[in-house]
């Protein structure tokens, strides 16, 4: 039985072997992804991509890799995450002559944060928000206007802006409480458009010209647009933003994980599946939905602030409905309420357009088709949500079953 083989394999593995598995699980996709991004030769990059896909599929299906799956992505999740973080921290140093790839990675990271935010609403709570770009915009504009008009430093504005975005999230959330699914979708679209029009026409937001000369972050006296000097070598300034984004992403992932493995995430899912039954079970669905709006918008606000101070210039065109749909696509493609899935979706939909520059004209068609295909064949996404096993709680045995098993 399942129990026996698990116990058997567990006895066989030493700590070192487990570490090796985690290392492999983290570094293999990492290196392959690196190959996709960094290799200039189109064919080699494609091969790298194919191997990456094979690895991902293999992990899920191949018997050979089953041990990898149960160990590295099961009990050893934390160690795998640490190795992944290590890889992410070291890899960019090999891209010192390729600031463009660094730029792609930074944008992918920002989109990850965005997608994680939308995931709270669409993935966890089942709220169809089609105007998410509005919160992204509020965060970006709030942060940049505070910086340009009041000369506040980035590390202060990036703390204020998300709260402003969260407030706007509540603004949408309240009418949303009284509305059914499609009414809600309509409200979200309308809100997104209202924000876009206001940004385009109000004077203090700069109108169609947006906000220029947004000051970059300054840490310990060094500005982020100055090249990074480490170990005596000079690295492109993107590296500064890369690490900033990496830190923000890690914190976002941590928060996402904490919320998912708690009553908050559980109740969101309950509301998504059956709102009436949830209400009659004692769940305050209104509060839970408002929370989803606020937290999701908060994340979007952070992403917006990051984006604004990285690119240095924002305009309403950066926050159109197309952006809302792309982020939505990331959640649908990657996996509704699966953190790893959402990250994967974000990476795919932000990297693919860069790699397929030649087909830029067809970008939105491809995104739309990808969403449609997903909705038909795999509505739960590439990485469907897994059942909660509460492995993070102290292990207890009842009738011989250990927590954390499938």
């Amino acid at each position, binding site marked *: 039985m399942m129990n026996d083989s698990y116990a058997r394999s567990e006895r066989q593995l030493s700590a070192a072997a487990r570490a090796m598995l985690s290392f492999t699980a983290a570094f293999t996709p990492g290196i392959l992804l690196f190959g996709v991004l960094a290799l200039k030769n189109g064919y080699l990059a494609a091969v790298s991509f194919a191997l990456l896909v094979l690895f991902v599929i293999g992990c899920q299906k191949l018997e050979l890799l089953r041990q990898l799956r149960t160990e590295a992505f099961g009990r050893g999740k934390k160690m795998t995450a640490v190795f992944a973080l290590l890889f992410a921290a070291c890899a960019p140093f090999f891209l010192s002559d390729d600031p463009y790839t660094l730029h792609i990675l930074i944008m992918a990271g920002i989109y990850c944060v965005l997608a994680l935010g939308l995931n709270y609403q669409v993935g966890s709570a089942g709220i169809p928000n089609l105007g998410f770009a509005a919160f992204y915009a509020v965060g970006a504009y709030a942060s940049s206007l505070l910086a340009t008009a009041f000369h506040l430093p980035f590390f202060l504005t990036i703390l204020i802006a998300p709260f402003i975005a969260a407030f706007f999230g509540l603004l949408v959330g309240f009418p949303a409480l009284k509305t059914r699914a499609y009414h809600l979708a309509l409200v979200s679209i309308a809100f997104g458009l209202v924000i876009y029009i206001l940004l385009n026409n109000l004077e203090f937001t700069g109108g169609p010209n947006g906000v220029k000369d947004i000051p970059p972050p300054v840490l310990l006296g060094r500005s982020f647009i100055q090249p990074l000097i480490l170990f005596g070598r000079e690295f492109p300034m993107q590296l500064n933003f890369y690490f900033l984004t990496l830190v923000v992403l890690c914190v976002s992932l941590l928060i996402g994980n904490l919320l998912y493995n708690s009553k*908050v995430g559980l*109740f969101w899912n309950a509301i998504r599946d059956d709102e*009436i039954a949830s*209400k*009659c079970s004692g*769940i305050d669905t209104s509060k839970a939905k408002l929370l989803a709006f606020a937290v999701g918008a908060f994340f979007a606000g952070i992403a917006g602030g990051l984006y604004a101070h990285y690119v240095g210039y924002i305009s309403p065109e950066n926050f159109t409905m197309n952006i809302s749909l792309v982020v939505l696509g990331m959640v649908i493609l990657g996996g509704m309420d699966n953190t790893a899935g959402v990250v994967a979706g974000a990476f795919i939909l932000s990297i693919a357009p860069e790699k397929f520059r030649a087909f830029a004209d067809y970008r939105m068609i491809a995104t739309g088709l990808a969403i449609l295909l997903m909705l038909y064949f795999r509505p739960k996404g590439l990485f469907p949500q897994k059942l909660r096993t509460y492995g993070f709680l102290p292990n*207890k045995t009842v*009738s011989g079953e250990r927590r954390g098993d499938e």
Partner: protein
Amino acid sequence: MKNSLLQIRNLTMKFGGLTAMDSVSFELTEDRILALIGPNGAGKTTLFNVVSGIYAPTSGDILFKGTPINGLPPHEIARMGIKRTFQQSRLCESLSVLDNVLTGLGASSKSNFRKALFNRPLLKKELSAEIDQARELLGVFSRSMRDSCFRPVSDLPPGERRKLEICRALVSDPAVLLLDEPAAGMDPEETLELMEDIRRISALKKGIGIVLIEHDMSIVRKIAEEVIVLSYGKIISTGSFAKVASDPLVQEAYLGNVENPS
């Protein structure tokens, strides 16, 4: 003298021009099993929907342990101690068996958020205790559900789904349990098991008041201590099963006018 749990006084529910419930009054005391019967469309489920807060009554009062609850939102009524099951079992299909039971413990959401981010140790302690509590309850009704409580709900056979719904309702120790046609679609063997389960509920949760909507008279006859008959939204008879079954008004409601079949 047993304490009153639910007092329904002249409860009326109108949907536009349709009167689904007309001046319904009855009382549910502690440690009692009350059956609500009547032909289809008589307003039984509507009664449950009003008591559980899904609809606000057009007029009338509902008192829970002396406190008026009409007009309160469903989650507040549930937290006060009135839980229910549904005719078409409403479970969270994407969640596991255990998670479904845990949703029955829907305490305040605000502190949940703070706990999730800033007080992990407390969250872990509470969650562990709740999982134990949930598994123990599951074990009372179905050993297999308790042992494989991390499996998806979609794997469960219909009989187990009903038990799961009952567990979800019971896990918070409610004072009142409303069961909406729990025996629907069950064969005689499953029906016997259901009766055992209902007896188990009474034994397990001391003092609980159960209102049971049922069409299967074999259950009603054996389990119900009092029977209320609804027809076209009005109560037409109350009393023991024997008394109600022999009431000509009740027979007419179910079978139509025996002398002039329409």
